[in-house]
């Protein structure tokens, strides 16, 4: 078993693995997302939410977490060319946008293959 | 640009058929593993156009008792010649 830590949200104990990903994907809700974001020093605003919602729809449909390239194209396709840019997403989600945004959106931890 | 195709399954598999559909006339085929059962099969070899060179991996033919029954069209090659064939052709496509 991977060692876990817990964050308390609305009286619920939410288990995180040591990389900060949800142990149970079903634990995700908007309050959990807000809390996961704050662990990354990110305060969620509507610009973040539209990407988070897009990612969750993408995951539910395709059962995969997109790599950065696919995320950029996904945002470009669904939110328009102004937002479908690495630089825009990097401002919203520091580090690797696909990884950070996937974590906050409650998607599974990537297998490090890509 | 010529290409070496390796085929590793027996005639029942239809793997050779797939390979032959997309092969170019100056390519070559090397039968390996269970693929060497093609080496004694007139039907298999007839399906391969004359310009395509046909090889069989000697070690696999020996193991499967197909070395002595192989048809003249097939040139038995050992693994070191397999390596040479890979470098003599521009690329290798493995059918398995």
């Amino acid at each position, binding site marked *: 078993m991977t060692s876990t830590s817990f964050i308390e949200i609305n009286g619920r104990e939410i288990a995180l693995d040591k990389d900060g990903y949800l142990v149970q994907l079903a634990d995700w809700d908007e309050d959990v997302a807000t809390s996961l974001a704050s662990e990354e020093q990110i305060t969620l605003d509507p610009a973040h939410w539209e990407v988070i919602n897009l990612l969750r729809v993408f995951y539910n*449909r*395709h*059962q*995969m977490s*997109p*790599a*950065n*390239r*696919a995320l950029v*194209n*996904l945002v470009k*396709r669904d939110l328009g060319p102004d937002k479908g840019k690495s630089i825009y997403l990097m401002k919203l989600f520091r580090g690797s946008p696909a990884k950070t945004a996937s974590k906050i959106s409650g998607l599974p931890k990537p297998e490090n*293959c*890509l | *640009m010529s*290409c070496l195709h390796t085929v590793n399954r027996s005639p029942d598999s239809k793997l050779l058929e*797939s390979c032959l*559909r*997309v*092969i*170019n006339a100056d390519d070559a085929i090397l039968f390996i593993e269970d693929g060497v059962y093609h080496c004694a099969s007139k039907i298999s070899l007839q399906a391969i156009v004359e310009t395509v060179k046909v090889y069989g991996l000697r070690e696999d033919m020996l193991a499967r008792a197909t070395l002595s029954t192989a048809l003249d069209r097939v040139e038995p090659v050992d693994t070191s010649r397999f390596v040479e064939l890979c470098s003599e052709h521009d*690329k290798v*496509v*493995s*059918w*398995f």
Partner: protein
Amino acid sequence: MTENANTAKPAKSRITFISRSAPYGNNRANLCLDMALASAVFEQDVNYVFLDDGVYQLLKGQDAAAIQSKTLGNALETLALYGIENVYADQQSLKKRGINRAELLPGMQLIDSDAVAKLIESADTVFNL
């Protein structure tokens, strides 16, 4: 990726993937897709060809939940998002299996055997499984 200073090679190669296996019964279709997506992430020039039983991957309406598996057809829909535009289905393989164009996922270009041969010929590397 590790760069080796004494091997100056172009940063881009042309890779043709031939996906020849039906989904679910074994993992070859998934391995092929994983390789192609990785190639796209590393910005290689990718061609993706569905041949033989591989065309079964393209059927619309797959739902693999009942066999505890991810639905491959839904994953294939992401090829375009990964920048893989050259996606082909072999006409003869479809015909042999009685599959009509209308039954296929969108975005497939139907090609004949000669065109598949050309995609093999023009590639630097071919992955075929």
